[in-house]
């Protein structure tokens, strides 16, 4: 599938299509772009799952890894740039950045997982119920959902922190309260659309009970799309938690957490490694979740529409 006239070209220096770079200088950039683009398409799922997998493993087994203690301070080696001894450098208190960067994930990531793992099933069940039952019940549930959706998530979390003091735990509570409504809305929409489809009517005519219709017929067609949404949501939650910590309202130092590490690093702009690596960690993980969600959605298409 290589673009023939780009590479094995007519008019190469060697006549038979050598690769002397000089003659193709203007063409190099689009070629690289094209290859990058192609690689992205083919390996989307692989890359995203790979990144998630690596992080998952790292975060779980990190206590077993031969890494420096993330809390151990040694002012003598403070603010050292990355070197062989400290691959990510050290921060203002002499703590090893590599270790802290990996340990930092153990705050936001589990917190995000908790929020989504509670919100997703809760919201999905309520939404499916509302969509299937309809009538006044549906109206009431949707109005309540709208109320919650209007509230800004971060501000609410900040309010809770203001009231109870900063802690990751409080952030989790606040976020969980406001996270499930978006699933309600999406699930209800899908159930509404599906419940009048022919195959659902046929299942009803076959004699399935309403609960069976909802759980065995409708939900298998709803869940994949909502799962995609949940995957992307995990990324969003990680972002929000790191935002909270950045503002000093989430995990409290000296516990390593990506957001608060970036905040610390903002005071030492010349020592770029202190703020950069945690930020990259967030970026890589959230990106991976988004990419994973996208590629799963693309792969599921014929299953959802029933057509090629």
């Amino acid at each position, binding site marked *: 599938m290589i673009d023939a006239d780009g590479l094995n070209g007519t008019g190469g220096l060697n006549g038979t299509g050598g690769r002397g770079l000089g003659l193709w200088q203007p063409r190099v950039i*689009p070629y690289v*772009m*094209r290859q*990058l*683009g*192609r690689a*992205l*398409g083919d390996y989307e799922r692989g890359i995203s799952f790979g990144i998630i997998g690596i992080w998952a493993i790292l975060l779980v087994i990190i206590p077993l890894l031969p890494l420096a203690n993330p809390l151990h301070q040694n002012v003598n080696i403070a603010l050292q740039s990355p070197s062989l001894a400290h691959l990510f450098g050290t921060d203002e208190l002499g703590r090893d950045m590599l270790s802290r960067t990996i340990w930092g994930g153990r705050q936001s990531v589990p917190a995000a997982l908790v929020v989504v793992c509670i919100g997703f099933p809760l919201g999905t069940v309520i939404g499916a119920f509302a969509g299937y039952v*309809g009538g006044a019940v549906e109206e009431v549930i949707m*109005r*309540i959902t*709208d*109320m*919650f959706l*209007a*509230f*800004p*998530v*971060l*501000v*609410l979390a*900040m*309010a*809770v*922190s*203001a*009231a*109870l003091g900063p802690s990751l735990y409080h952030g989790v509570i606040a976020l969980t309260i406001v996270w499930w409504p978006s699933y309600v809305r999406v699930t209800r929409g899908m159930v509404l659309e599906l419940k*009048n489809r022919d195959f659902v009517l046929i299942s009803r005519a076959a004699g399935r009970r309403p609960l069976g219709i909802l759980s065995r017929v409708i939900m298998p067609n709803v869940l994949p799309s909502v799962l995609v949404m949940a995957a992307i949501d995990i*990324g969003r939650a990680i*972002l929000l938690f*790191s*935002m909270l910590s*950045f*503002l*000093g*309202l989430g995990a409290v130092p000296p516990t390593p957490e*990506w*957001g608060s590490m*970036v*905040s610390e*690093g*903002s005071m030492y*702009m010349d020592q*770029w490694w202190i*703020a*950069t690596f*945690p*930020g990259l960690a*967030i*970026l890589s993980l*959230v*990106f991976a*979740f*988004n*990419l994973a969600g*996208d590629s799963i959605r693309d792969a599921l298409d014929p299953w959802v529409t029933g057509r090629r």
Partner: protein
Amino acid sequence: MSRYIIRRVLLMIPILFGMSIIAFVVSRAIPVNPIEAAIGQQASDHPAIVAAYTKEWGLNKPLVVQYLTYMWNLLHGNLGISIYTQRPVLTDLKTFMPATIELATGAILISLLVSVPLGVLAAMRRGGWIDRIVRLVTLIGVAMPLFWLALLLITLFYVHWPIFPGPGRLGPTTIPPPRVTGLYTIDSILSGQWGTLWDALYHLALPCLCLSTWSMGLLTRITRAGMLSVLPQGYLQVARSKGASERHVIWRHAWRNATIPVITVAGLAYGDLLTGAILIETIFSWDGIGSYAYQSSINADFPAIMGVALLFGVIYLVVNLVVDILYAFVDPRVRSAMTVKQQ
């Protein structure tokens, strides 16, 4: 059309009520000591102040009456007194809101300006390398932690290559224009102070750019998706068969239809922009609601932060109302939408 608007407005009312209930519950239930959270630790040592507060908010009455008192106060603009600034929260909000509006609106405008053409282009060259690069970049943009990006941009474009100015809405020597709206840009235009306008825009640039990255990523993807759904539509082929050039087909037919969903998403994104503004304002020392919110939460200024929450909620609802109406303007099918209820 007017029927549609009325319906939309009517639907908002119960939501507003609901929001106030939530705010009320949060104010009373979350803090360990609601009174102390509301007036601060020092003030709660003074029985007289405590008594006055209790009376004002009906705290010794049954819960329902408390809520009604709360609503009454709310409707009269009484959101409590900020512990930190010792001013009514409403006043604080009014003071700081314009800066945030300026920031958020600027960000969404930049986003739209960049996203729509990019999304259209990506859709038209679907599968091509432009499309894939756009998808990659938007995925990164949506995944980027805003605060990290802000620090990165400041380091690059202020510390190392001084293209952009330092923190704040205006330079240290510039005097703000006479306040009409509170938006420095508009106000300087209104009073003809072009130098101030330039300074304000200059300072607005980097924060807006930063804030817009997330919404830019989102809106590009939505535009692209909308365009992809419109491109196979029959009426485009019909237009071609009438003798329309490809350019005419895209820009006079396809584009308008494709951007309809963008309007809705832009409205939804506005809410997330406000959240992002909290971070941006903190980093860029921008005197807006975001900074106010940050200060309030650091100082445990509970009434202030609840005021911000309510404000953001109201802004979100209003923006969505505007978006819905705009939507009805653009898509006539929505205006007369009467659906048959299947049972």
